[in-house]
């Protein structure tokens, strides 16, 4: 039982006792939609973490202190007005009720934003240099503005304190205004706010002093910094240690948060929230370096997902707190499960970065595998209670994510569940996705389901093709079809699928078809699958050209993941071509000729290759559905009003006998993993 001793050793931050060493670090939730005021959704999201045992949550990544630091793009929290105070009180109460602590990150984002909305501000930065990730041009900040922003920081901290929050974290990371002043890459000033070390430090120092003056000595104030900007002209680890020590020595700070890597380019941004292609805790050494020079606790979050990993880091003393933020998005009850000796039941983050990639698109943060996260306010449960009604016989056909979630939830409800899968393993398309280089960790989704289904006693029938007769023989009360889709290669008959001229990305990733020597991948979808198959082929030694009719290969992939694909594809000399439609394929001897047509000029060009792989999405596998539809009591229909309201399907209330039939996931229409899991959860939670 001493296995997690270090993890559960409480530690004080200023006057606060944090009950364990696990922190949900600041991230933009994109839930504070009501003009920057935290909503019920926001509160419930953090309450769930506290209920699950999280020691400290730092909410509100990039919450703004000033009205000219726009918040609407990411719906971040707006601390520039006293209106926020009562909202904070709700938030603080909800977290404190469960023994948790909650702080908020406060910031002025400077040039790291967009000006073309909300109040249409002129963005400000020490030297007016454009920021590339947001394509943000900005003005050079004037001294009067510097002083105003310093005062804004102090007022924002006061609002957090008056709202009952436990502390504030100043953001000097991710190239916000404070670290824009720090970095010689961005700060070219020659006045007292730039140039020499003390001058570059001045803005942050004045902010810190003003905040401390406002909130007093006993209120927790920390700072989040980067450990190394990873730019030759930026701040390296030695610079950061010097900065950390400089601020530490004032005695005004209560903790440091450390993130490895700067993020004002697409490539460095991917480091900040390491996806599944990274090793565990890739930047821990940078945080440990900062810990060497400071006297207060250091928090570090980057790819720490596993309790044993967390314990190892803490036990070794590299840092004082581990940030397990995505780990909490995947499973807010991670701490409770450790305490319950249910480590096997933790739904572990797989680093798919669905959460953060949505955030960078201005969409609400959701988990690829846990559809209840951030939907607590809608009544979607993390813990599914047993039904008090009739025990039903539930038949799930298809072992992909939707089918696995349906089976899990139905079994948690206490029903007798059978899952039929035609292949020899669970996972569906996740299994294919995991075969690509650097994508193997996505199989963690399946691994968790396999463990849970075994724990819950779901009867698994693998290598079994379900037909209508079998379903009728089994006489289920509820039949859920999650049969998925089939690669859609017939869309253009000229592709020659019927003549065997092209193969699908599934054929390649599954290993059914060996990679050719010279391969053209034609990808109309521009998400993971096309990039993955190109990467897979290149890794196997093929010469690959990745062609799309869209504006750029992988354009549908979020900002923390396309860079890691690009790193690999460029390294392997994959040629990426855009704006070309695959018009036709024909054979020429052993070779295949792809006829490509430029979308904008109509000009055609040809490629002579050994193999043409097409990624054109899927069509629903719906044959079984239409065979069963007529015989079902609900004629296969899902009541969308009830579904969208997360309420029980009316068909469940009808006492008549007969089979209820639902279908979900790609066998309805192609969407994604999260969509299939979300539908399965909201359909089955009231089963």
């Amino acid at each position, binding site marked *: *039982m*001493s296995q*997690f*001793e270090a993890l*559960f*050793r*409480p530690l004080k931050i200023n006057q606060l*006792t*944090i*009950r*364990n060493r696990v922190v949900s670090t600041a991230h933009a939730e994109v839930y504070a939609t009501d003009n920057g005021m935290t909503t019920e959704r926001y509160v419930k999201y953090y309450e769930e973490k506290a*209920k*699950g*045992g999280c020691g400290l949550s730092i909410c509100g990544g990039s919450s703004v202190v000033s009205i000219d630091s726009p918040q609407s793009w990411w719906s971040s929290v707006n601390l520039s007005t006293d209106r926020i105070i009562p909202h904070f009180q709700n938030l603080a109460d909800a977290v404190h*009720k*469960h*023994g*948790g602590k909650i702080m908020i990150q406060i910031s002025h984002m400077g040039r790291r934003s967009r000006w073309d909305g909300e109040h249409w501000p002129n963005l400000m930065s020490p030297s007016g240099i454009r920021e590339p990730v947001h394509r943000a041009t900005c003005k050079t900040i004037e001294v009067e503005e510097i002083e105003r922003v310093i005062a804004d920081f102090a007022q924002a901290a006061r609002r957090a304190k008056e709202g009952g929050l436990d502390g504030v974290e100043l953001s000097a990371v991710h190239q916000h205004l404070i670290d824009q002043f720090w970095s010689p890459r961005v700060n070219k000033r020659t006045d007292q706010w730039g140039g020499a070390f003390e001058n570059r430090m001045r803005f942050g120092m004045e902010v810190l002093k003003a905040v401390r003056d406002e909130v007093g000595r006993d209120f927790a104030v920390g700072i989040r910094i980067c450990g190394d900007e990873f730019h030759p002209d930026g701040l390296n680890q030695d610079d950061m240690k010097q900065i950390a020590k400089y601020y530490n020595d004032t005695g005004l700070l209560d903790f440091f948060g450390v993130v490895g890597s700067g993020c004002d380019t697409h490539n460095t941004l991917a480091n900040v929230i390491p996806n599944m292609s990274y090793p565990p805790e890739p930047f821990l050494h940078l945080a440990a370096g900062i810990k060497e020079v400071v006297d207060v606790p250091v928090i570090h979050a980057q790819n720490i997902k596993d309790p044993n990993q967390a314990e190892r880091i803490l036990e070794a003393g590299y840092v004082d707190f581990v940030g397990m933020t995505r780990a909490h998005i995947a499973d807010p*009850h991670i701490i*409770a499960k*450790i*305490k*319950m*000796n249910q480590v096997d039941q933790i739904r572990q983050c797989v680093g798919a970065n669905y959460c953060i990639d949505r955030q960078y698109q201005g969409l609400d943060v959701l988990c690829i595998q846990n559809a209840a996260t951030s939907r607590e306010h809608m009544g979607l449960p993390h*813990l599914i209670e047993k039904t*008090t009604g009739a025990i039903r016989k539930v038949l799930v056909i298809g072992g992909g994510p939707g089918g696995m979630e349906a089976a899990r939830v139905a079994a948690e409800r206490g029903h007798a569940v059978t899952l039929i899968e035609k292949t020899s393993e669970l996972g569906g398309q996740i299994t294919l996705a995991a075969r690509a280089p650097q994508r193997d960790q996505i199989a963690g989704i399946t691994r968790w389901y396999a463990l849970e289904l075994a724990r819950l006693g779901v009867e698994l029938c693998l290598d079994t093709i379900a037909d209508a007769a079998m379903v009728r023989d089994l006489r289920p009360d509820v039949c859920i079809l999650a049969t998925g889709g089939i690669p859609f290669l017939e869309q253009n008959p000229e592709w020659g699928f019927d003549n065997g001229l092209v193969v699908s990305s599934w054929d390649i990733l599954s290993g059914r078809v060996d990679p050719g020597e010279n391969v053209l991948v034609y990808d109309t979808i521009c998400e993971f699958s096309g990039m993955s198959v190109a990467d897979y082929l290149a890794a196997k030694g093929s010469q690959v050209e990745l062609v799309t009719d869209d504006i750029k290969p992988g354009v549908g992939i979020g900002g923390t993941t396309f860079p890691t694909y690009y790193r690999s594809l460029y390294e392997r000399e994959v040629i990426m071509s855009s704006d070309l439609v695959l018009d036709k394929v024909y054979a020429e001897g052993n070779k295949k000729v792809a006829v490509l047509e430029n979308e904008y000029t109509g000009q055609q060009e040809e490629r002579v290759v050994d193999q043409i792989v097409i990624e054109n999405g899927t069509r629903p596998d719906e044959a079984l559905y239409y065979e069963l539809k007529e015989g079902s009591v609900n004629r296969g229909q899902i009541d969308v009003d009830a579904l969208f309201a997360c309420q029980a399907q009316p068909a469940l209330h009808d006492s008549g006998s007969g089979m209820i039939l639902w279908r979900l996931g790609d066998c309805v229409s192609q969407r994604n993993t999260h969509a299939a899991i979300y539908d399965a959860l909201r359909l089955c939670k009231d089963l």
Partner: protein
Amino acid sequence: MTILDWLLPAVLVVALTLLFIGAIRRVQLWRAGRPDSVNLVACLLAMPRRYLVDLHHVVERDKVMSDTHVATAGGFVLSMILILIVHLFGINSASLNGALLIATALMFTGSMSVYKRRLNPPARLSKGPWMRLPKSLLVFSGSFFLLTLLTSGFLPEGFGSWVLVAVLMAGVTLGVMELLFGMGWGGPMKHAFAGALHLAFHRRPERFGGGRSTGLKPVNLDGPLGVSEPADFKWNQLLGFDACVQCGRCEAACPAFAAGQPLNPKKLIQDMVVGLAGGSDSRYAGSPYPGKEIGKAQGGPHRPIVGSLVSADTLWSCTTCRACVEECPMMIEHVDAIVDMRRHLTLERGETPNKGAELLDNLIATDNPGGYNPGSRMNWAADLDLPLMAEKKEAEVLFWVSDGCFDMRSQRILRAFVSILKTAGVDFAVLGNEECDSGDVARRLGDDATFKSLARHNIATLARYRFRRIVTTDPHAFHVLKNEYGDFYPEGKEGDYEVLHHSTFINELVEHGKLKLDAFRGGAVTYHDPCYLGRYNGEYDSPRSLLAALGIQVREMERSGYRSRCCGGGGGAPITDIPGKHRIADMRMDDAREVQARTIAVACQQCTAMLEGVVEPRPEIRDLAELVADALIVESTGARAEYVTEEVY
């Protein structure tokens, strides 16, 4: 009939003389033990009531055997008195003769029942001379009945021939040899003589008259530590061993025996008898220590026990559950003896097996058995904001947290209890890092020195604060605080507080209307009585009435209440970890499965740990505090509810 006039008294005189000589010799054997001062007269005067009432209560659990014994023993005692009057002193009267006839007839009837039972005796009974005893009883009572008929004049003059007289005399001789000579010289009837004196000079007189005495006696740390040879026992302990009737009720109750570990409490007591009298166990005719051969053990009053008479594994197999003591119709104290011998192994020889030595080292270095940082006792409650005695100085209730604070599973029980305390608005405080291990395990492992230092330390800590009651969720801490700390208080400064187990305390809160409970909805529930709560402290009712308050109808296991089967976790047994054929916890789980329980309600974190160690699928294990905390109806308005931390599980 003149031959009878002198022969019968002669036989009686010889037998009585032999009995007397034997008894003196036996007493001498007991006197080899260490002194224990007793009030001879008062003890002897107390004996009849102890025999007729207290012992009878235990024997009566088996009604048939109880009646049998009343008839046989009662008949014998009565017969013997009358035989001496009539046949030795020759005081003859029709009424005396009639009474003697009735007494012998009664004894004969009883003996028939003994005889019948011995036709197909249960495995727990010893065989050997004990198989002869019913016959001897029948011969004795039958012969005296007929002889009295002959001498009483109830039969016509000249009835019967010299052959009959000779046969009857032979019978009488055989009978008195078994019943009188045998009594003094180590035959089965020894139990009557030794048993009567054992009851008189019992080391735990508190057990008589409905009392309870379960706390271990302290070791004099200035003398020899523990028991190395039989003569190291107190004399009245040796006497107690001699009282054993080898009925094997202890054997049938012993969890270690059932698990195939090398312990049989009956054999252990018989080995002690071998030790006090000298010789070997070759004549022992009962079940062996599982896995050990009979006939190899040698002993003598001044020969070391461990090694030649009893193996150390036998002593370390005991869970100190007291099931044997509870069952023993002779009220023998097996556990005291075992711990006495463990004390020698631990304190003199330093031979605590397996993790035992490490655990004791931890206790010495860190005041807790796991060797955790003693400053981390409150980690489990970092978010609960518990009032500390050091700050509060005074509270109605001192919540004794115990070492469960270091264990994640136990922490859930502790947290559940805290939410109950808060919901009920109890004025309580904890000692926090000032608390030390209660010393229970150290003491059961024989390390009375460490126990004493922990007890003294805790007593000094407790003395700094004012409180009326100590409440703990740990029955082991409960037991030592309640029953064993008393010996270590400075003279005249005894603690003025009550010690309660949380089941008692919560039940009281419910009865006083301080808690509102929802009904439990989780299917069939059974309740496992922890040894240190039940047998050690007699608390069987509060847990059950609490469960009733949750709307639970307990499905009682066959072994429950005072007959509850140990989980295997007591006495340091999980630490010394002596291998057997089964695990005790598995057997206990089977008991629960037999009554189709979905949940086993427990009241001890050690039981929780042991039972949860059984591989799934198995019933869920829930402490009473957890069941109650789950069912709490917390008023949503009012300040009180606000600081009750809602847990996910």
